[in-house]
């Protein structure tokens, strides 16, 4: 038991990784990416048909919720895991992305690829606008204000004419084909690959940030905001950066989601989604990319998988959250130990 308690898969993995030379690392990365790209085919054989969940095909589940949740959880991880800001309204940015895709896609001639940067920009802008007044506040107030913002976006979507009210907007266009690859309801693989590309870009971005100035600033803010400020870190500016970058990722996920499901409605953007994404981050291991990905995969797939106990599915989900958090409070794959040791005492 003692060995199990002190065993940290994240550290073990980092040890192996750091022992490798460049060519070994490159091979490994390509191998993993290759396997991930081939994932949509995994459900095609009769022996693997168990991957299909009772209500949705395996490929559909792979795009939404699994891929989408990983993308959003990585975005939220920048906010919660890296800089320690508790955001309970992350769904707002997802909704802003989805609604920009729906409104611009049905009323203008822009296609989804052109809308994607606009949606990200709008999400980012709202992140800045929300962040400017609220990021000065203490953590718990930030939590309630972001929660409120999520609800405001949803309620506005219900009550404003141009967003279609409670019925939402239908007929959101699919993205046009790229290099002969089609994206529609019969070609879900395409959507999965877009999401994978976006996830890889986000991972790349986070890793670049982490080892550079913004990453160090976020880490300092997370450990102790006052000390960071005394050390000359422009706290508010870096908080807003982290907040708006997270928002942009959420917005991007929203655009792709709207175009994949071809329909948006306020019901899709409830507080529960924010909670679920936050659970993915904390459950997997805050601040650690691989933990977050693992957490999001499990939490996205599990409720679909156990749909056969349909009525009690959310109940089991809640129980799983309580039990795992009690057994492994730092998540399944916690952040590196050396980061944790330096953080100890300061964050309490």
């Amino acid at each position, binding site marked *: 038991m003692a060995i199990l308690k002190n065993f940290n898969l994240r550290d073990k993995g980092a040890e192996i990784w750091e022992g490798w030379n460049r060519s070994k690392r490159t091979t490994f990365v390509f191998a993993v990416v290759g396997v991930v790209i081939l994932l949509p085919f995994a459900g095609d054989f009769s022996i693997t048909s168990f991957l299909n969940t009772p209500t949705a095909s395996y490929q559909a589940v792979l795009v939404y919720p699994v891929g989408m949740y990983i993308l959003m959880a990585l975005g939220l991880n920048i906010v919660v895991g890296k800089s320690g800001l508790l955001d309970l309204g992350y769904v707002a940015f997802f909704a802003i992305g989805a609604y920009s895709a729906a409104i611009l896609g049905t009323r203008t001639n822009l296609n989804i690829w052109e809308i994607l940067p606009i949606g990200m920009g709008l999400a980012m802008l709202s992140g800045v606008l929300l962040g400017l007044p609220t990021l000065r506040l203490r953590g718990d107030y930030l939590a309630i204000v972001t929660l*409120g913002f999520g609800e405001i976006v949803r309620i506005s979507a*219900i009550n404003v004419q141009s967003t279609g009210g409670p019925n939402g907007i239908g007929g959101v266009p699919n993205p046009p084909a790229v290099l002969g690859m089609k994206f529609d309801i019969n070609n879900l693989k395409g959507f999965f690959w877009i999401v994978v590309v976006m996830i890889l870009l986000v991972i790349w971005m986070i890793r670049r940030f982490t080892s550079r100035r913004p990453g160090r600033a976020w880490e300092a803010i997370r450990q102790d905001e006052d000390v960071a400020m005394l050390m000359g870190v422009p706290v508010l500016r870096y908080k807003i950066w982290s907040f708006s970058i997270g928002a942009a990722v959420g917005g991007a996920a929203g655009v792709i989601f709207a175009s994949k499901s071809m329909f948006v409605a306020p019901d899709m953007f409830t507080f529960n989604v924010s909670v679920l994404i936050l659970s993915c981050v904390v459950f997997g291991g805050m601040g650690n990319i691989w933990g977050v990905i693992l957490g999001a995969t499990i939490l996205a797939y599990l409720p679909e998988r156990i749909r056969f106990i349909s009525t009690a599915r*959310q109940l089991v989900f*809640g129980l799983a*959250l*309580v039990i795992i*958090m*009690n057994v492994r409070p730092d998540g399944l794959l916690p952040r590196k130990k050396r980061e944790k040791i330096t953080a100890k005492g300061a964050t309490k």
Partner: protein
Amino acid sequence: MNFSAVTGQFWSLLLAGVAIGFIYVLISLGYTMVYGVLRLINFANSEIFMVGTFASIIVSRTFFGYGDSSDTIHGFKLYYTLAACLVAAMLMSGVTAVLVELVAYRRLRAKGTNRLASLISAIGTSIVLSEGARILTQSRPLASPRLLNKFFVFNIGTVGFRIDIIIVIVFAAALFFAVDRFVNKTLLGKAIRAVSMSEDTSRLMGINLNRVISATFFIGGLMTGAAAFLYDLVFENTRFNIGFNLGLAAFTAAVLGGIGNLRGAFFGGITLGIIEVFAAAIFGAQWQAVTVFVVLVLVLLFKPNGLFGEAIQQSRV
């Protein structure tokens, strides 16, 4: 926009706002007391409220056998029936709160882990409770039998004071006063205040931390349960997801008054109730929640510690 409604019915709107505000006060005590000792948002408090609303209705329906078409009752019978409902709601909520603390917080606290882990485990408990209620009630709302004949006791000008509104205001104010006295005057209250100032020091002073924290959850739960009973009395209806909106509003109220501050919760709850009712009258009920949050953001911008956070710091739980 409908300002004429406000000028025309200013005083009746004000009364309605104060009444709902008093219900918020009691629920926000559940949030604010727990926040005071643990520095944690007790996410399951909304579900503790939900449990209370069901307990109160189930007692009157199953125990006393009243139904939707029952006549109102009077005299001594009315008193003991309502008292039984109240006690059931308070006890059920109180016990649920203590259990939530045991399941969601205690182990994590002993490990001394990060606050987000506790938050997620509280969210998990909250999902379990509301989903459990959803399955048991099959997502159907449960109506409360109208036992109390709701007559207007007196009128001041055009404003009618209905009996249930008067009960809410008087009873909630009395309970708040009792809790305030309790926290400030008794030994256990002193222990609660000590823990909220410094956990480590109070442990050194020989305070049994777990017992004090359990007691705090229990008192917070009792108040939330009382709020649940009063809610049933006025609105006569409950659902498995009733806690979400009310819990959110009550938490906002606690923040508005300065979270962790008892008297702040009192003023925050009433202020929020009034703002909410007027916002609904002016902008329409669908914008109610939005107005509340806009107000909250404005308050936090100019008074980051809440409206009353600084002024009565001493009475921090």
